[in-house]
Each structure stands twice: as C-alpha cells, then as structure tokens.
C-alpha cells in the first residue's frame, strides 16, 4: 500500500480546467504523470481490446455515478464533428463496443472491436476523448442509467447483489459535497491495458495515450479530501452486517430468500477453494441446492449460489432461491442444512471435480473471449499497474489446487452461516423472533437496500 500511496502523491491530479474552444468549464479527469501501459495476451476470437483506467477521487455513490455518466456521455453523446447518432452508427458498422465499469478507486473504459478494424477504432476513440460535445439532457439520461435498479422491484438475485456491492464500495456523499454540472473530460489515464498482439495497434495505443491531455491549471480541488480517499486512509472494511433485512410485499405469492456475506481470503488457493465449494452448494444443475430444493422438494425453479469476485482475495458469497411465499421458512431451513452439511465435509468428490472443471472452463472461456474480463483480473492483481514480470496467482491455482484438501478444509474455507446477512423480499410471514435476534430491519417500499444495510451496520457498531 505504501507504493500505491507514493505513486498517487506523485502523479495524480484532478483539476478543473477551461476548455478554450467551447468556453465550457469541464472537469478534467487525468493524471500528470505517465500512464502505466500493459500488453496482455490477446483474446482468441478475433477481438482486440483496450482499457483505459482513471482514478476515482471520491468513492461516493453520487461521485461515482457522475463519473460513469460523464464517461458514458463522452463516448456516446457526440463530438464537435459527429452527432450521437453518427457515433452509434459507426460503432455498429465496425462492431465496436464500449464497456464502462468501476471499482472502488478506478473508473474503466474498455473498447473492443474486431482485429481488422481496431487501428481505426483507436482513432475514433481519440476523437471521442478529445472532442466530446454532449448536452445536459444526454448526461441526465446517462445519469439515470447509472442509478441502481431497486432490487425490491425486480427481485433478481443479481440486482440485490449489485446493491450490496455498491454498499461495500461506496459511501453516500456528505451533504456539503460539491455537485458538478455533469461536464467532464477524460485525459491521461493512470493505466492503459491492451490485448491485441498487433504491433501497429501497440504503436497507436502509445500515441493515443500520449495525446490525451494532462492538467495544465493549478491544483484547485481541496487536496486533503480526495487524496485521503485515493490513498485508502479512509478505506471501508469489506464487511456486511449480520441479521435480517425484510421487504414485505403482502400481495406477492413468492419470496426471495438470499443469504449474503462479504469474504476476504488468506490467499488465492483459499479463494478458488471456497469458490468451488460454493459452486458445489448452488451453481449449475449439478449442485446440492438444485438436487435437493428443486428436484427433491420441488420448491424453487432456480435455487443458486453466486460467487462475485470484488477484488484481490475478496468476494461476495451468496445463496438464494425464490419460493412460494407460504413455504419460505421451510426452504430457508433447508438451505441452512445444505450449507452446514457441505461445510462439515459431506462432499461427493466426483461432484466437486465436476464443479471445478466447470469453473476452470469458465475462467478459460472468459479470459480468451470476453472483453474486459481478463483486464479486470489484471487490475485486481495490479491496481497500481505492473512493472516487470506479471503473474496472476489466481490462474495458477487451477493447476495446483488439490480438491481432496479443499473438501477436507471445508469447515475453514466456508464461513459460518450465522455470519451471513439474510435478505427476504416478497410475501409470506415475517421472520421469527429467533431469526431476528442478530438484527432486523424492515425495508420501506421504494427504498434502496442501503437504508437497511446502514441501519444494521450502525446497530452493530453501537
């Protein structure tokens, strides 16, 4: 972490600058130093990709939403020479795609396109980044897209986990925090990661990165505020409260039961080992939850587990099922029993091997065919960029993991279920007093999950 702090001190600036051409006051997101550039193994399906990474100065929900919407507006809202529609048409005709992602400290833009058009894709990207002209209305719409979907409406496990992930990564802004006007420019990134294998593309990437503007003006934002965030001195712990969050919908015939925990691992072997065990419990049709809850109890269509990697040796673990409302206490208890059984070592080796094979294939497929996926793994390992030999230990675990050991250590690898947070969304009875003993929050209608996550967290910290 010391290296990271030092580098941020030396190279990062987020300043306000005047754009002389349009006399528009826009916030320039850029570094004064040199971008760290990495060339990764190319994808294997004829696609090239480039990811540019900028720092997030203030990891708050409002700031991150503004930055995302700003970057989305820059790459889609129009330039001095092209309308938004022309840009969309050009991308369609060339097969170009943009992906915008954020982690706690990084804002990432990935551009992918077929190999044969990637050189001109970089020229196009340069034009988007250097000459953006988007309207307030366009930005307002992009800002709407960044609003997390209220998971109590859709009741999809992935939407619930998305709200949970945002809670873990970002805090709400302080009331007095500055709210920008949505005018952004994106200049020199802190990192650029290329997967192409074409030397001409590599040259063009270096040229593009060099052309991106650096801050010229004085350092105008209050230093301490954002530097503190950048250096991680105010880093939030990667933890969720325990207890129960309950959104009661008396009109619903269904109930979503979702257990979730934020987990940190001692090393990558523990991470993959836990991932395989969680998959054994609930991923795919070969899982215990599918076998018991769907096939034996006939209680849910899609009982499942999720293992969402959030960073180096960090993941969100979740088990969930949507069941008939009247049966939810029974199924809740069964999920607990399944988990406890696997945690206590009752594991069929053949099934574990099948899950491991599936996870291995998924990693391989995503690394070589899915734009942004491999870069994300690289950034988990090298958040401040690499210098010299690059190794991603997570990938190496697939050659060394001993599944017998994993099964034997299941009690250590899987955290106790009592440490999980339980989220209930839908109809049926309220949770019993016993279930509420570790904390309870009834979520009001049209309210984000964060409300209850804060209530339970604050109660724990009292």
């Amino acid at each position, binding site marked *: 972490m010391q290296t990271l702090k030092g580098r941020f001190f030396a190279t990062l600036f987020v300043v306000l600058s005047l754009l002389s051409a349009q006399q528009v006051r826009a916030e320039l997101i850029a570094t004064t130093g040199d971008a*760290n550039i990495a*060339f990764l*193994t190319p994808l294997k399906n004829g696609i090239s990709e480039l990811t540019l990474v900028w720092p997030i100065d203030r990891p708050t929900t409002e700031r991150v939403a503004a930055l995302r919407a700003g970057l989305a507006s820059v790459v889609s809202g129009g330039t001095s020479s092209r309308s938004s529609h022309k840009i969309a048409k050009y991308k369609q005709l060339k097969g170009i795609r943009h992906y915008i992602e954020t982690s706690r400290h990084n804002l990432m833009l990935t551009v992918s396109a077929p190999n044969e058009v990637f050189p001109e894709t970089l020229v196009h990207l340069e034009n988007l980044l250097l000459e953006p002209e988007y309207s307030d209305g366009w930005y307002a719409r992009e800002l709407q897209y960044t609003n997390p979907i209220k998971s109590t409406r*859709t009741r999809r496990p992935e939407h619930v986990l998305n709200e949970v992930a945002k809670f873990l990564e970002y805090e709400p802004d302080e009331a007095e925090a500055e709210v920008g006007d949505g005018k952004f420019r994106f200049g020199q990134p802190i990192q650029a990661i290329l997967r192409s294998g074409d030397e001409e593309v590599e040259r063009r990437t270096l040229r593009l990165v060099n052309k991106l503007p650096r801050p010229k003006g004085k350092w105008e934002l209050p230093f301490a505020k954002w530097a503190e965030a950048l250096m991680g001195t105010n880093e939030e712990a990667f933890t969720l409260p325990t207890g129960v969050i309950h959104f009661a919908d008396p009109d619903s015939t269904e109930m979503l039961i979702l257990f979730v925990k934020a987990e940190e691992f001692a090393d990558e072997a523990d991470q993959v080992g836990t991932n395989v065990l969680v998959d054994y419990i609930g991923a795919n049709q070969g899982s215990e939850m599918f*076998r018991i809850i769907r096939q034996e109890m006939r209680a849910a269509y899609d009982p499942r587990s999720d293992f969402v990697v959030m960073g180096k040796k960090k993941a969100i673990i979740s088990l969930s099922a949507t069941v008939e409302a009247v049966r939810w206490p029974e199924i809740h208890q069964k999920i607990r029993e399944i988990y406890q059984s696997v945690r206590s070592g009752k594991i069929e080796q053949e099934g574990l091997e099948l899950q491991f094979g599936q996870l291995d294939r998924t*990693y*391989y497929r995503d690394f070589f*065919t899915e734009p942004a996926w491999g870069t994300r793994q690289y950034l988990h390992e090298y958040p401040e960029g690499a210098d010299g030999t690059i190794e991603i230990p997570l990938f190496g675990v697939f050659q060394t993991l001993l599944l017998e050991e994993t099964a034997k250590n299941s009690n250590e690898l899987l955290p106790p279920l009592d440490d999980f947070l339980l989220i209930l969304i839908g109809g049926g009875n309220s949770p019993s007093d016993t279930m509420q003993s570790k904390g309870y929050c009834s979520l009001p209608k049209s309210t984000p999950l964060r409300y209850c996550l804060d209530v339970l967290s604050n109660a724990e910290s009292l």
Partner: protein
Amino acid sequence: MRAVVLVFSLVFLVFAGTVRAQSVIPLSEKGGLYAAYVVPSDDFDRVDVQLIVLSGAYDDPEPSGTAHLTEHLAAFSADATILRKPRERDIYATTHNVSTVYTNSGVPSDIEMLLQLSRAVLDTPSLPAGFAESEIDIVQRETQLRERQSPLRWLRRIALQNLYGTLRGRANNTIEDLSKLNLEKAYQFHETHYAPSNVTLIVSGKTEPDKAEELVARIFGDTEPSEAPQKPWLDHKPDPELRFVERIRSDKLAHDTVQFAKFVDFEDRSTSIDMQGAFFIASDILKERLYKALYYQDERVFSVDADWFLAKNADLELTIDLHLMPGFSLDAAHSHLTETLANLLNEPITRDEINQARQAQVVSARNATRRPVAFLSFLENVASDGFPPITPSVFVEILNDTTDQDVIDFAEKVIKPSATSVVLAEKAE
C-alpha cells in the same frame, strides 16, 4: 511512459480457435425427422446438437403454458433415461414462440451421447411417480419469477391480447392460466407436436460430416414420418382497422412506458423464406430511423426497443417499448411515436442507407461466430420456422442477393396503416 508485457501461459481444459465460414449439409438418412443438418466448424472444441420441435408457445392449447410444461417433462425424461446421473450436465431447453429448442453440448467425443439425449426427447416422457405432477409447481415458480423480473412480458402480453382479440395463439394468458396447467394436456401436446415430422435436428461444431451422418442415421433411423400438427395461429389475423389503446397503472414499472404492437399482413405472400434478406435490411433501416428520431434526437425518451417477428407465412408483428424520462407525458409520447412512425419514410430510402444496413447485418453475423452460444442462436433462428438453418456466411450471401427494391417495398409495406394496439402504462410508487 512505462510499458510492460504480460506473457503467461495458461493450461486449461479446452482450447479456442479462429473464426471461419460454415456450410450447411442436409442429411438424407434421418428417419422420419422433418429435416436434419450438419454444420461442421472447427472454431471451438465442442459439438452441439440442437433438436428443434417446430411448435412453441403460440401452439399452446388452453391453458397457456402447456408447451413450456411439456419442455420441462421431456428434458428431464431424456436426461434421466440416458444419463441416469443428471448432475453431470446442464439441460438447456427453451420454449420460444414458434419452437421448442433442446441443446445438448459437449466435447467432440461426446457426440453419440449428445445425439441419444436429443433422441430421447421424442419419446413419451417417463418420470418417477409424483415427479411429473410436481414439475407443474416448478413451471409455476419459473413463470412467476420471470413475470416479476421482466415486467415487459406482462405489458407486451396485454398489448398482444388486445391486438389479436384473443388469449391464445400469438397472444397468451400465461399468468391467469397457471393454476390450470395439467399433465394430461402436456402429454397430449407431446404426442401431437413432438412427432418426428415436426422436428429439425442440427449437429454443429467439431465433427466429421460422415461420422455425424452415420450417427444420425443410426440413432434417429427408427423414427417414423407422421402428420405434422396444425398451426391455427397462422390464420389468426386482427382487423386491419383496429386502433386499440389501454391505460394502466402499476408499481412494477421503473418508468412510464408506451407499449406498442402492430400487425402487418403481407397478403400476397405465403412464405417468408425468400423475404429474409429484405426483412433484415429493411427492419434495420426502419429501426435506425426510429431510434434516431426517438432516442438520439429526443432526450425525453429514456430508452426505446423495437422487436420484429416475421412468421413463416410472412405475417409481421412489430412491438416497440418506449420508456420515458420523468416529465414526458404518456399521451405526448404516444402522439410522438404515432407521428414518427407515420413519417418514417417521408425521406426516401437511399442506396447508401441500404448498403449501411446490409453492412451492419454482416458485422452482426460475423460477431455471432465469435461465441458458441451466439452461433447456435443464429443457426436456430430461421430453422425454428422449418426452413434450413442459415449460417453467418450463408446469411451474408442472402444479404448480397437482396435487391434495393425488395428492401424499399418491404419497408413501405410495414409503414402503411394496419392494426395496432397500445398500452399506456403509468409508473406508480
């Protein structure tokens, strides 16, 4: 500027390859199947067998959802019959509007087992006592889940019920009919619609055509041709003068929404097989013009999505979902949409526009070859109508053979006034 290079080798279980063109080889030794094809491809180290039953949700009798229940029963029965250890693989079966597709995938050495799994789908489902009955509960859970997760299914259902004036065929009554699902209807559906003469088989991936042909002949050779089921929904057409508007209010919605549906009858055509090129190019042009007017030039619209369905008999159904930004009223948005559609061809379609649309389709087809799932979806598309599957490379030839006049004629027909149904849905907190 520092540059570093990542050089690491990964030893995983499978290996990917490059993108190439594929040919479609019809098989003659196919038993009683409607059609069977091999599409060899070395792009990925896998083989996929798609068994396409040429009937789907549109063929539902009363109750709606019967085709879906049948899909569940046949999939589990096939798995249990062949594998006896269902935990080893995922069943991948989907009930679409006009077809039900069973996809069995594996490494090339699995091909015989994959074909046997596909063949077993055609046998009358055989499941343990009580299991089949309780699968109704699972279908109910799944339907409720999807309904909650995708409110647009519900809005579109209302629009189509009003458009066709029925709860069957191209419209359905899925949620209300859930409690009426029963095994008797499902087995009856299987007997009628899972007849070999109503089934197309596609074997694609890393396989020798001769080997695939020999295996298909052996495994499907005992199937007998039979009468293909009737498709009454193909004759069901709305009154061309219909202009139905319904207003609703719901807390399921994230935005105020205009749900639009239109039926276009190409009355001088009896099949859509020779209209595919014009359909894809013209719909792309119209969609582009629509999106330009409603999204790129109008920031009051949050998002717009148009869905086009060209039936095998050349009936066209167009649905448009318009989600509104706060402050844009439903009535104003409805008027705006109606006016935009009416004026969509005020400017004549140009040759450049046609070429661009053609190019966009070519790019999209090439992208389909980069991921196995996208490639399978591409093959299945027109094959679900009982036509030969079209590979991306064959599709490019079709696009190039389509004349500009074909495209213009198609687009003009779509824009002419015909039956429409609109739901104006207000978001409630």
